[in-house]
Structure formats: C-alpha cells, structure tokens
C-alpha cells in the first residue's frame, strides 16, 4: 500500500506502523461520572466497519507524524490522509465551542 503523506508525499505503507481506529483520538474525560464505562468503550469496543475506516498510522521510518488515514477496509482504497495533530486540534476546538 502507498500512503500519501500530507507533508512528504507518497510513501510505502511499510514505513508506517498501524495503531487502529482514529476514535482513539477521542479520549474520554477521566473525571466523568461514568468514566469507567467510557474508557471501556474507548479502549475496547470498535465499529470495525467493512468499508470506509478512519485509522491511525505512525510514520516511524520517517518524520514521526501520526496520520489519520481514511481507507476502505474492503478495497484498501485510501481517500484522505491528514495529520492526526490537526485532526485532534480540530476536535479540541469543536469541544471548546460546544462548552
């Protein structure tokens, strides 16, 4: 597979390490009253879709960026690659607005 790194261009997937569902960015609040249930769902339950999947890849043999890759788990087609930090910042901001 080839991942089109937003900063470095197309790179062989072998340069990367895979972690899993990009929902791992959405870490629950440890002080929430139902923190245990939330962390259980965060740590263990997965949508595991057959189709489009947002997932985390780490460019270990490269610039050490964590990326959010949108990839189809049936065809392996990649449609979007973003810096995970940008995605995470977007989420923080969105949460901030929500409050």
């Amino acid at each position, binding site marked *: *597979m*080839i991942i089109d790194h937003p900063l470095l261009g197309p790179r062989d997937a072998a340069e990367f390490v895979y972690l899993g569902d990009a929902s791992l960015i959405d870490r629950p609040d*440890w002080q929430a009253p139902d923190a*245990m249930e939330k962390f259980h769902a965060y*740590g263990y339950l997965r949508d595991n879709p057959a189709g489009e999947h947002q997932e*985390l890849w780490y460019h*270990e043999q490269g610039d050490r960026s*964590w990326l959010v890759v949108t990839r189809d788990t049936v065809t392996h087609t990649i449609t979007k690659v973003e810096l995970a930090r940008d995605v*995470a910042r977007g989420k*923080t901001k969105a949460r901030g607005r929500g409050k």
Partner: protein
Amino acid sequence: MTQVNRLPGGLVDRSEEVKFQFNDKWMRGYPGDTLASALMANGQLLVGRSFKYHRPRGVFTAGSEEPNALVQLRRRAEQEPNTRATMIELFEGLYATSQNHRGSLEFDLLAINDFFAPFLSAGFYYKTFMWPKAFWEKLYEPIIRSAAGLGRLSMKEDPDSYDKGFLHCDLLVIGAGPAGLAAALTAGRSGARVILADEDFRPGGRLNAETLELGGMAGHAWAEEAVKELAEMDNVRLMSRTTVYGAYDHGIYGVLERCTDHLRDSNGKPRQILWRIYSKRAVLAAGATERPIAFGNNDRPGILLAGAMRAYANRYAVAPGKQIAVFTNNDDGWRTAADLYAKGVEITTVVDSRDKPALLNIPGARHFGGQAVMDTVGRAGMKSIQLTNGQVIPCDGLAVSGGWNPNVHLTCHQRGRPEWREDLCAFVPGSDLPPGMVVAGAANGAMTLAAALSEGAVKASAQLEDLGIKPKGGEMPQAEDEPRDCAAFWHVKQSKNRAWVDLQNDVTVKDVKLANTEGFRSVELLKRYTTMGMATDQGKTSNIAGLAILAEEAGKTIPEVGTTIFRPPYTPVPLGALAGRARGKDFRPYRLTPSHKWTEENGASFVTVGNWLRAEWYTQPGEKGWRDSVDREVLQTRKSVGICDVTTLGKIDIQGKDAGAFLDMVYANTFSTLKVGRVRYGLMLREDGICYDDGTTARMGEDHYVMTTTTANAVLVFRRMEFVRQCLCPDMDVHLISTTDGWAQFAVAGPKSRDLLRKVIDRDHDISNDAFPFMACGHVTVCGGTPARLFRISFSGELAFEIAVPARYGNSMMAVLNEAGKEFDAVPYGTEALGVMRIEKGHCTGNELNGQTTAHNIGLGKMVSQKKACIGNVLSQRPEMIREDAVRLVGFRPVDRSRKLIAGSHFITKGDTASMANDQGWMTSVAYSPNLGYSIGLGFLKEGQNRMGEIVRAVSPIHNTEMEVEVVSPHFIDPEGERLRG
C-alpha cells in the same frame, strides 16, 4: 544424429551444440532450446511421473503452465525440485533428473498405484485409515507422505544469493507478445516511463511460435525489431526472464527476474532479483493458455496441447513424433496441422468435434468432423488413437486443442471475478480490475493478431491520456484476423477409460463426477475434495474443464458454477528470492553499543538483546565457567566498583514549557513537581491499566527532562509518547526526540564509584553526597571539558552513578573508566551480573513486567495517581485488577539452601495437589546470589504480601522436580536502601 525429432528452421542457433544430461544420459541441443524442446529433439518423450498414479508423462505445454514435465535441475546444494522443463533454457553442462518415482523413471515401482486406481478415487483417504487409531501416525501417514510430494530438496543451505529492488514507472506492461509490444511501443514513443516485463527469455510471445505475418514481416522478426526499438529508448526498461507474479494494492506489483538461471554458474551474482514495481498504470497483456479436452488415456507422453506442438515446431524446430494426429474443437487447432505439415511432418488425421467441413487442406490428412478421440494406446509413448466412431488411427503424437483461456490471473488478485464469454467459451477479465490496470490482447479475449495489436496500442494510449501524457506512435502494422471459431467441448462422454482433467494431481472426469454425487457441488468444494487445480500449475490447463464438467453434472451453467479464486503468485517464486539478503547473520541488523570495541577486546562474551549485542560477562584467565565470571563481577561491584555499558536503555529528550504536564499524562506518577537537578523513578501504564514500562526521568532544566526506558521498549515507548503528544495533547508545548543512539551511558556502581568518578569528572564539579545526593542529576564535563550528563541512580542497589557522554566518545569513556578504576580493582560487568544484582535488590525487568502485570501486582498500586489525568489510571481500577487476593511480587529462597531455584516453576500451597486449579503463581526470575551464597528468586504469589515466611512448593513438572521455598521480601540486599544513599 541424436536429435531424431529435430525439424528444419526454427529460432534455435545451430551454429553450436549444447551438451546436457538428463538422468545421467548425455544429450545435445542448441542455444535457444528449452530443456523440454531439447529432450523432445532427442526423442526423450518420457520426462516424469504423475503425482498419485505415477503414470508416465511427457512434455504437455511450451510454457509456464506445464503440469507434467517437472524435473530436478542441477545437483548437490543447487538442486532445484519441480522445475518446469519448458521454462529451463538449455545451457552447456545442464544437469537434470526426473522426479517422483521409486526405481528408475522407466520402471517406477509406485506405478502399481495405477492398478489400484479403483480404490483410490477422489477423497478415498477420508473414508478409511481410521482403524486402528494409532496407525495413522505410525503407518498410514508415513506411507502416504513418502509416496506423495514431488521433487526433493537437497537439505543443504541454498548456496545462491538473491537481491531485492524497487522500480517506478508510468506504465508497466506485463507480457511482450503482440499486445504487450504494441502497448510498450506506443507508451515508449510517447515518452512515458515504461517497464516491459516478460517471463520468456525471448520477447515476442506467440509471435515466436506462429507463422503469422505483420506488415509483410515474419512475426518473430517484427518482434525482434520492436524490441530493438524499445531497447534504444532511455525511458523504457525491458525485462526478459521476468515474471510479474502478483498485483498488490495501489499499483504495486511483485516481480521476479531470473538473472543467472540460464547460466551454468551464478558466479557470485544474485541468482534472482525480487522487484517491487510501483506503477502509475499497468497494461496486462499476458496472453492466453490453451486447454485440453478430456478423453480416455489422454495423458500419455506424445500428447501435447496443439498450440504447444506448434510452438515446438515453429520456434524450436522439434516435433514429438513423425506421424501426428490433431484433435480440436476450434479453428486454431487446424493451424497446428498446417504448420507441422509445412515443416514436413506427416499429419495423419485432424479430428474436429464440430461437424463442419475441413477448415484447411492438409495433404495426406484424414478429416473427421463431428468426431472425437475416445482413447489412446501406448505406454511410455503413443501408438494409436481410437475415435468415437470406433476407428483406430496409428500415430506417435497427438495435438489437442480445447480452446484458449485468457490469462486473467492478475486481474483477480484483488478479488476481481472474471466473466464468462460464450463466444470464446472462456472467462475474460471482469469489470472489477485492480485500480490502474487495463487488459489488452488475448488476455482480454482479443484473440486474433490484428485485434491484439490494435488493442495493445489503444489501451496504452488511454492509460497515457489518463496520466496526462499525449500518446503518439500508436500505429501498428497490418496483420490478419485469423479464424478463431470455437465450440464448447470439454470431455468425450463415450470414453470408457479414465480421462484426465488435472494431469499433475491425477484428477479424472470420474473424480469430478463422484465429487458432485457426494455433494461437493461448489467449485471450491470440488477443488478441495478432488485436489483439482492444487498442483504446481494451479490448474492453469485444467480448471475450466473441471468446472465445465461439474456444471454439466449439476445442471448449471459454467458462469453459475464460477471459478475458484486466483491467488498470487502467478507462477511459483523461490522462498530464497522472497527472503533476499535477510538470512543467516544478516537476517536482522546488529546494534552495537558504543563501547563494543573495548568490550570485545577485554574478553566479553556477547548476548543478543533484541537487535543489540551486549556483553553478558567478561571472562578472566583461569575462570572455568560463566558462573565464575559473573560471581566475580557481582562480588567486586558490591565490594568496590563495577562498570557497565547501559546505552541500550532508551533515552528520550523531552523539552518544552509543557514538558512536566506532558510527563504527568504519560506516567502513572507525577513529574511536574520534580525539582530541577533531580531524578524520579517513573511507572508507565498502558491505557488498559497494565504496567507498560518503567525507568527514571531526570529534570535537567525547567523545560527539559531526560527519560530512560527499558531496552526492549525504547522504540515502543517513544511511539506512544508521540501518540500522546500529537493525538491526545495536541496543544501542549512539548517536543520529543530519541537520543538512545546519541549518548553513550555507563553505570558506575559500588562503594568506590564516587572515588572512581572523581578521577574522571573535571574537578570543578562537586559530586559529594551533599552536593550530589541520591537521585541527583546534572551536566558535568569529563576528561578536561568533554560534556557529560551525570545521574545518581542505582539499579544494583549500591552507591551508583550513570554517566553519559556523546556516543562518539563512548568507547574511550569505557577505557577511561576502567583505567581510572584500576586502583580500586574495578571490574567491567555484563548483563548477567546486572541481572543478579537487580534480583538481589528486587527490581523488576521484562520477566516481571511482561505485559500482564498490574501496578498492584508489583506492590506499586499506590503509585498510580488518581488525582490527575494519566494514561491507564481509570482502567487500572477495574475490580478484577485490584483484587486483594491477586498475585504479588515477593522473594523466594530454597528451604534447602543448596538447591537451585527454577524460573518458570509454579507455586503450590503445601498439602495441595499440583494442578492448575491449585496454582498459586510462578517464579519469574532466579539467580545464584554470590553475596548470600544461595539461589534466590522473584515471583508472583497469590496474596504474597501476606505470606512472608510461609513455605510453599515450587513445582516444575517439566523438570520432574519440586522443592520447598520460603516466601521472603524481594529485597534480599540492603532492604533499607542505605548503601545507595551513602
């Protein structure tokens, strides 16, 4: 003349002869021959034995689809089993032997299986060999195993080397037949970066096997010109003897180039190169494979596919006999009759399953329309054929054509399914091709020469336009649309004798029918039950006929039955090539510590720790075994001072305004409160609350921390910290860099460590206990100005320091420390002594922190802060993980002090039987303590914290032993920690 079957003409080079051996018999051929054509030329039609019935078999095809003519090529360590004679280029001195027979090829003892064939029908082995039970492994299976299998490995290490490489292109053209050449010419002339790969040693594909003309030129001559033109283009890479074996994601193709297989010796060059080709677009022009028709005894030597027989006559100038019959269901079969006749071979008969007038006039040949070959006579060769009308016709060779199957394999490697085309009686590529791939020529069902040429050019042009390259030069010469009419005809129903579908695995029409009768009605079940298509040719010539017969039996259409799944590789790839250079000592890289040279020169024995080589101990003259060395190193360190290279521990530099807050998130305990110039032990959890790693982190400045990790987890911890930084704390001002390889670090441990360091550290740095107490850290200089970092931390439990210098000074630093230590009788120590001292001190390492251990288990539950956000603190509080009766880390010593503890023993309460239900825990680490004079251990014991002084049984049934052990504190030495504060 030994080449009894040699014809005039052909594309072999008659200016010289090539001598070779088959089954130790010398024979002659010409450059340009394959082993198959040369054997045929020498009248050697019997080449091998079939898998199950050990039937005599000869060459059946002229390409990589060959099911029969498999030989062992070369000898000794270079022996290569199951090599297709049709793909072996003849070279001087070639040595090949036939395989899969007991006794000689001619008189194979296992041919007796053929007589027992009625009892060996499809799947017979699933129905028997069940009684008595123990006989399967002892009797039945060994007999089956030794009879099965094909060629033999030499059992010696493969002496050849293999390389790997990476190539990039705009357009990859797969196959250098007419369609592929047209595609490559078009793309090459347009200036695109092109790779043209072809499995043959002579580009041209069927052009080399046919007498068809292009623009008035012989086909093979045109191919030669085309190749010459391509060779002159800088933007084109021509790769002959190169098989594209797999289509992988995102335009990546797996490719094998055979570099020295056509030479007598590889002469130190890589035998083969495994390429990965990164293509923007691809044109698959892999041609088509002919298929046989099943009839009685259709497997004898001398029976060839019609197109193959034509290839042997036209390209290699050989024929399998003098009197040839042809059996076809299509127009193309007639061309074999015509071409062989033109070469002076007698054609006795053309049998056409279609009730039509003769397509061509072949003088001397009788034409039977609407008939079929029902049976053949002969043993190691052909004598005659019998037709469905009862007529017997003498012949010594038979060409069979059941039509052609487009080579759709690569189109299906990404789960695409081919589609049935009734007019061709064949599957063609479906619409769900691998992204970026198009198919041209016979592979796409464009079966005539004119169609293949034009499609190659047109498809390539479309691909170029897609890439924004303007196509030019796509005009191809005039060629004909030769007749290709075909009428489905799979097997001869009138045949009474066994009719083979899969030649290599000995699957007959009856087997297919039996599978259907017994309910194995999916094509996948048929394959698995009968083994059809599972041989080394993966059913390239057999599968379609098999599923057609299944369809007929099941009352379905062929597309309803469908094909099995095409999987990579297209043709088999040597495991040596797939491994490349990563074998032997080069399997993985070595990481050497900065002091490796000094260490090596000073008697160290090395141990592999991940990819690192570390000193495990240093042998002194007179020491009889490793224990002598280790005991000395431990005793001397505790008595005076020892020095150990600890560079392999991970080192991570953490800088930024939020560095402290970041570490609070990463560690279970708190680091933002750590004072500058101080070090703290840190425990890191996984998000699931299990201990992940531990180490010390030093605060070198307000915004600067230096973390150490365990050796094993250095990479993993850094990766996780980057995850936390980028994904969980994206707004923190913090940066990380791994400095594991940047700093050489040494532990200097023992009561004299400070004295030793005072000699090395420049005088203006005060390292007295007051100025530099336990858990202090700071910047110093050594040896007159060399920058260094000093940490007062201790793994051994002694007064100890770790000193780090830039890695390039590491070897010198090791030498300097040891030199300076001479007056204290300092010793360098290795990982074994390190291990003994940490067990004496009760410190955990990987044996304890094995990914299953909670902080609670190691007695550090309180260290997991519940007052801050940090990785793992929430899930660490799940009820099963904080049970009071959970296992706890404690120390053990044998009641009988002379006994040696065993790591991996399990603990059983005295009086209980030893069983899993009574399992109380296990011993994680043991060592002989030279300080205590007996064996000591660490381990996890249920409620261990409450069982001090209890005697439990440490059982090790695997060693057939057990002993009584006493539960003690894990801190065997200096439990109060006075020494390290001294």
